[in-house]
Each structure stands twice: as C-alpha cells, then as structure tokens.
C-alpha cells in the first residue's frame, strides 16, 4: 500500500476547503490568531511582516475569528467550481482523492452532515385555542420533573395504613428531560468532563461518562453521573460503579453502529491512562461487540451482574444505536431486565468514526423512537423501561417533539459542545480542537475553564427548559408526563402516509 500524507513530499491533489482572509489594514499584528490556531493554518510571515495562512489546513473552527481583537479575519468557503454533476459531487470527488493519497479509512468527527430527512422539521406542535386555556408558565406551575427507572403496572397500597406494598425499582430524578450524552474523558478534555458534571449538577440532571472511566476528581458529582460500561471496559472498577447514579451498558452508538471505538495513543496522556486503566500512549481500542455479549441472554446476565454489583440501587441502562429492527431489540432489552433503554440515531455524534459508517449506517432516531414506543406499548411493557433518545437534538422543540413521540428524556451532545464554542468543524478526530474540547493536549485543554463552560451549558439547559415550559403551556399541559407519548399533539407536514403511520401521527389538517 502506498501511504503518503498530503502534508508529506508528494503533491496533494486536494484543494483547500476554506480561504482565510485577513484585512491587512485592520490587523495590528498582535499574533493572537497564530497562537489560537491549533491547526497550523495561521503563521506570521516574517518576510512581509504580516499574518499569512496555510489555507488547506483551515477547518473553519472560527477560533481565530472570535479571538481577533480587530475583526480582521473572515473565513470563506473556497469557491472552486467543478463541472456540475449531481452524482459525482465535490465531496465525493474529494473523498476519493483523500483516500487515494492515504490508503486509509476516512475518519471524521461529529454527526453525519448528509441531508437525512429531519422529521422533527416535519412535525408541528399543537396549541390551545378557546376550548382549552393555554397556561402561562410564568404565572402557573409547570412541571418538567422526570423519573428514570422501571415502573410497575400497578401500585399496591394497603387501604387502611396507606402503606405501599409494591417495591419500586430504583428511580432517578431529573428536573428537566435533557441529559448530556456519553462523551468520554479522552475524547473530550478533563475540563470539559468537569464542566459537564458541574452543569448537570446545576441543572438537576445527569451527564454520562462515556466509556473512558471517571477521573477521581469528578467523583463528587456522582449523583449526577451516568457511568458507562462499554466493550473496552475502560476504567470500570467497583468505586466507579458505586459512584454513578445510573450504570449504562453501551452496545452501540448512533454515529458508528456496529463498530467499536479507537482513542489514538497520542490522546492517551498520563491521566487518561490512569483513568482508563491502560498504559500511557497506547491506543485504547474498544472492540466492536462486547466480548461477553453475543446474544440477548448474555446481555441479561451482564444487566443482572451489574445490578448485583451495585446492590440493586441503580437503574441499569442499555444504549443501542438506532438500526433497522430497533423495536424488536428494545423489546428484548426490556425483557432482559434493563430499566432504561437509550437509543442513538443516525445523526448521533462522535469524536471519531469512519465516514462511511457515520454517514450510512443506522436509521433516524424519530423512526426508531416511534416504532420502539409503539412496540413496547403493544406488548404492554412500556412501563418497564425509561426511553432516552439521542442523535442530533438541536432545539427545545426537537426535545418536545421527541417526548410527544414517546421518549422520557433526551441526550444532547453536540448542542452542549456548541454552547462552549464548538463550531461543528468535524475535526475532533485530530485531537487538535482549537476550542480545547476534543483534545487532551495540555495547552489546548486550558482553553476551557470548567466553571465558565459549566455555566454556559447550564444556561443552555435553562433556556431550553423554559422554552419547553412555554410550549407545554401553549398546549394546555402543565406537566411533562401528560406530553410523554401524547402523539395527538403532533401533526405531520410533508410526510408520506407511510411515514406518518410509522411515526403514529396524523397529517396537518386531519
């Protein structure tokens, strides 16, 4: 195999994607942009005493733009026109070019950028008019409190003493139906992990450790932590299981269903190594399957082993990617004893994934959620599990629509990162994130101050929660449980009849 890097000796045929423009009259030569650009695009041109850019290195992360004190920098899409072709699109041509230069699998970061139908954008919400007063959340109570965990069909109460005779499984309370998705320490920096933990604590919700273990410094946020047990078993030990509020078994992830994870050795710093319990500088490879789970009964054993290990004090969640037969799989998971099922759709994000997988494998979360909720109801077991969905949630309205379709709560990942500067430049896999998010580089990680980042994330949750309350109030509902699975508050626009049937919604005007 010929492996040559386009930064190496062979001439690359790739054209730069962006053009960095610096207005020379504005530039005061402070050097800030050079300092901030972690992708080696900006440099100080000593010959001409001005700032120059290596455009082909620019990923459009906008770090320089934001930090330039004189607004001297703009980033443009390179407008290099190809002969128009709907089939051989520029991105296709460029991918092939890149592959022919490296001989490797194309790796990328964040969620799919392909134009998958976003069903959230094709669903309208309802509002009260005349027959039913809308409710103003600023004046009236409006409740978002949600409990995750297995619920019985029926509660038995002794009518004389009012003593409850049914024992409930462990329940975890969140004050807003939005949680932070699994992002491992290693994929993101320790400061970001800490920010997530603090934001979750501030907002009364949970964050998820991902599969990289938990730094001891963050143990104190345990009541707001979902600890993940994934195929690599990185960082899983008794104290880790003990400290979390929920234990999540990760089977799959929306951005890369069916494949494992790969944290390159360069990102495995000394602390990452200790947290993951692996040698420093070694690649952290998560196998594609969990090697002790080759069937549903194996999953059941692991669920029960974890319940046993945590003394039945924590709900056990199973996270899967949304795939073609999610409904049947979810039913199996519920029957295998899970208390919570997390489903991650095709637009789900990642630190690094093969592009071919990210952009082609899995199904949209809307369809998976609708069919899973309907299936669990048809089988009369919807109560047994909480349903959490993930995969590209962008707005409070997306969240409201997901809950109306049947989710108990959603996970957000990308949106949380955007709140601390991420511009979805998709360069996370490089480990050079200029925003100090998806990196373990000592210098770059300092760009995130956990306290400020936590506040920004908590603000985002606060604003979404408030918007959710406004939308609930408009529908004449004052508690989130009356929205959950209440598909009558959704109407489809621009959906085929078959799509509407799968989503279990009527079309607008019906």
């Amino acid at each position, binding site marked *: 195999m010929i492996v040559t890097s386009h930064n190496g000796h062979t001439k690359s045929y790739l054209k730069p994607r962006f053009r960095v423009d610096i207005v020379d009259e504005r530039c005061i030569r402070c050097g800030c942009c050079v300092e901030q650009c972690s992708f080696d695009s900006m440099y100080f041109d000593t010959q001409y005493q001005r700032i120059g850019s290596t455009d082909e290195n620019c990923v459009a992360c906008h770090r320089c733009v934001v930090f330039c004190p004189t607004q001297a920098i703009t980033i443009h899409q390179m407008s290099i026109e190809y002969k128009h072709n709907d089939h051989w699109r520029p991105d296709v041509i460029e991918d092939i070019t890149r592959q022919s230069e490296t001989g490797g699998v194309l790796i990328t970061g964040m969620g799919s950028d392909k134009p998958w139908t976003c069903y959230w954008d094709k669903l309208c919400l309802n509002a009260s008019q005349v027959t039913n007063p809308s409710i103003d959340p600023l004046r009236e109570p409006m409740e978002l409190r949600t409990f995750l965990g297995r619920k019985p069909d*029926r509660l038995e*109460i002794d009518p004389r003493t009012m003593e409850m005779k049914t024992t409930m499984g462990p329940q975890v309370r969140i004050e807003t139906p939005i949680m932070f998705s699994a992002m491992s320490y290693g994929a993101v920096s320790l400061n970001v992990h800490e920010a997530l933990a603090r934001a979750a604590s501030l907002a009364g919700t949970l964050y998820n450790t991902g599969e990289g273990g938990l730094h001891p410094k963050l143990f104190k946020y345990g009541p707001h932590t979902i600890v993940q047990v994934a195929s690599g078993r990185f960082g899983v030990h008794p104290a880790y299981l003990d400290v979390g509020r929920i234990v999540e078994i990760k089977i799959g992830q929306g951005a890369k269903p069916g494949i494992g994870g790969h944290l390159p050795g360069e990102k495995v710093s000394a602390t990452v190594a200790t947290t993951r319990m692996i040698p420093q500088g070694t690649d952290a490879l998560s196998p594609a399957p969990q090697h002790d789970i080759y069937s549903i009964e194996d999953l059941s054993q692991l669920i029960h082993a974890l319940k046993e290990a945590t003394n039945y004090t924590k709900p056990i969640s199973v996270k899967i990617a949304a795939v073609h037969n999610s409904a049947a799989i979810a039913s199996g998971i519920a029957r295998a004893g899970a208390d919570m099922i997390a489903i991650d759709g095709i637009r789900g994000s990642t630190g690094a994934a093969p592009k071919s997988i990210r952009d082609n494998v899995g199904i949209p979360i809307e369809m998976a959620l609708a069919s899973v909720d309907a299936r669990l109801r048809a089988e009369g077991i919807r109560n047994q599990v909480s349903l959490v969905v993930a995969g590209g949630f962008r707005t409070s309205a997306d969240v409201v629509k997901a809950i109306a379709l049947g989710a108990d709560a959603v996970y957000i990942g990308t949106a949380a990162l955007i709140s601390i500067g991420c511009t979805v430049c998709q360069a996370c896999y490089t480990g050079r994130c200029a925003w100090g998010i998806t990196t373990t580089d000592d210098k770059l990680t300092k760009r995130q101050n956990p306290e400020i980042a936590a506040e920004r994330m908590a603000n985002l949750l606060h604003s979404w929660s408030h918007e959710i309350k406004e939308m609930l109030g408009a529908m004449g509902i004052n508690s989130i449980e*009356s929205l*959950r699975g*209440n598909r009558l508050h959704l109407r489809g626009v621009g959906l085929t009849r078959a799509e509407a049937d799968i989503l279990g919604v009527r079309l607008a005007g019906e």
Partner: protein
Amino acid sequence: MKGLLNPDNRYGDDKSSAACSLFGMLDTTGRRFSSEAVIRAITNMHDRSNGLGGGFAAYGIYPQYPEHYALHVMYMSQAAKANVETYLRAEFDIEHAEPIPTSPANGIVNPPDVWRYFALPKQLDGLSGDDTVVQRVMHVNTSIADAFIFSSGRNMGVFKGVGFPEAIARYFRLEEYQGYLWTVHGRFPTNTPGWWGGAHPFNVLDWTVVHNGELSSYGINRRHLEMFGYFCTLQTDTEVAAYAVDLLVRRHGHSIETLAKILAAPLWSEIDRMPPRERALHQTLRQVYGSLLLNGPFTIIIAHTGQMIGLTDRIRLRPLVAGVRGDVLYLSSEESAIHLVCPDVERTWTPMGGEPVVGTVGVAPGPPKSAATTQAAGRKSARGRG
C-alpha cells in the same frame, strides 16, 4: 374498529371536547327520590349546553333486578339489533328485555332504537363477572356496527342522547324513576353535531362520569389505557376518565382519595413539602401513574353504587361548587342551581383544585375540615368558566 366511522366523528377528529353543565345529587341515607330536582337544576344552566347532548345517570332505579347487569343498548339499524341480540343470547342469560319507555319530546329528532336487557354473563372464562361484562361491552362497541351499549351496571342506568338535558329527561320519561343518586350533564360540543352515544354520562359497569372540560392529556391517557385492554371508540375525552376510574379503583383496588391523587395529582411543589411518608407515596403515585394524570381543564363527577365524587383539575380551570343540606350532597357547575333546588342549603363551598368532594351512602356529607380557607383559596384560583 368502527370508531372512526361512527357518526360522531364524521370529520375524523381525535376527540370531541365540550364545555358543559354538570349537576349531581346524592342522598347519603340511600333514600330514593325523583328526578324532578336534578332536571330543574340542569334546566337552570341551560346556557351552558347547546342542545347537542344531554344525559343522566341514576342509581337505585332497578331494585327489582339488583343482581342483574342492566345493559342499555342503542341501535342505529334493525340489523344491528339482530346481531347484538344474537351475541347477547350467546354470552348472557337474559332475565328480561324491553324497549326503554320513551315519549316524544321537543327537539329530539331521529332517536335510535333504545333497549334494555337485565342479564347475567354466562361464561366467565376464569374472569370475574365484572371483567366479563367489560369485555363483552368492548366487543359490541368495537365490532358490531350500528350498535352501542351505553350502560352496563347493576341497579343503575344511563339515559342520554342528542338534545338539551331537559328534553332528554322528557324523552326517557325520567319522572317515572326513583334513585338515591343522580348525575346530569348538559353538553356544548365544539365539533360535530354529536351522536347519541357521544353524550355524557360515560359508563362502564356501574361507573359513570360526567365531564366538563378538555383533556390535553387525552392522547397519552388513551395510549396508556390501551395497554390494559381499554379501547377508546368514541373520540370523546371523557371516555378515558371512565376507563381510568375502572382500572384504578376496581382493578387496581385504589381508594377514591388515591384515585383523585392520580387523576389530579398534587404539584411537585406541594409534594416536596409533605412529611416523608406522604411524600414517598405521592411521588410513587406520580411515577407509576403519570400517564393517567388528567391534564387540562376539567371538572368531573364520578359516580358508582353508593358514592358520588366531584373533582376538578389541579389548577381548577373549570368550575365546581358543592353544597350540603342534611344528608344530601349537591355538586354543580353553578352555585345558583343548588340554591334553586334547595333554597335552604346549609352550606356551599368551592373545592380546591384536585381535592375530591366525596359523598358516600351511610356517611354524613360535609365540607372538608379546611372548608373556610378552602373557599377563599378556591375562589381565588378559579379562573376558567366552561
């Protein structure tokens, strides 16, 4: 399912919502009285209905058949009658069958053929008599076209149809009946012309519900009840309230107080202030039964043998007034109707949102201990007028 095709839903609406007048009257000694007072009361609230639905539930009216289920059936075609009777004969021992006596009344047009059957279920399939009856009623209502069982309890009956409630009373000659508990409903539906089955009260076994309001939670209430074998065929939100009551009280064995705490759950801010044991109970009730919370503006009067319960939504968006005189408990949408039929009423009060008013045969009725404060607080937060 024939639901979407029934005449009440020719436009395919999800649910019909209605503003309404409600009235209920219970003699807690069990003494039976005529329908005269309740008819006068509901007539006084004429403006709250629009002639598209009225109905009555009366308890203690069939003392001659105390053990038999009184099945009231409406037929929209002769074929339906033949089909239902074949089915009923196969599934029930029918003690007596007759057309329900009617007289022509103003404003009553195109009435269906209405019959009643006093019957006991034959085969119990290992189910209780009640469960069997529920299942048979569901069968007729979902799979036999043009027929509808609208009352299926013992020693009680529902009479309802399209018309103002006072006309419905005249049509069914209700002056001829004596009961110890009556509830009445005048309907103001917001969508279709209404069909006879869509009028209130809604019934399953001896449970009846009359309702003023619109349930924004209907979609999930219905989907939750489907998991327990209840299928909503009427696209009328009150239906879910009737089934929820049957599920929670009869099948899950909850008390009326617990029922109220589920249908109109206390707010979390209230639960958080409760002493630990009570807090745990209320929290668990919301965790388990959150999908049955009735959300949106409502007042309902629930009745079953020996008991009448009034309940409003937790933020009291629809009116309810209670009154007591001696052994008699009154519930009404408007206080004036109580004063009209009982000028010497001893006490009236406005219940708090979500706080049930319960009248039980054998128990002297009365306002809650906190009635004085209740009254003031209740008035303050009452803002809806259905």
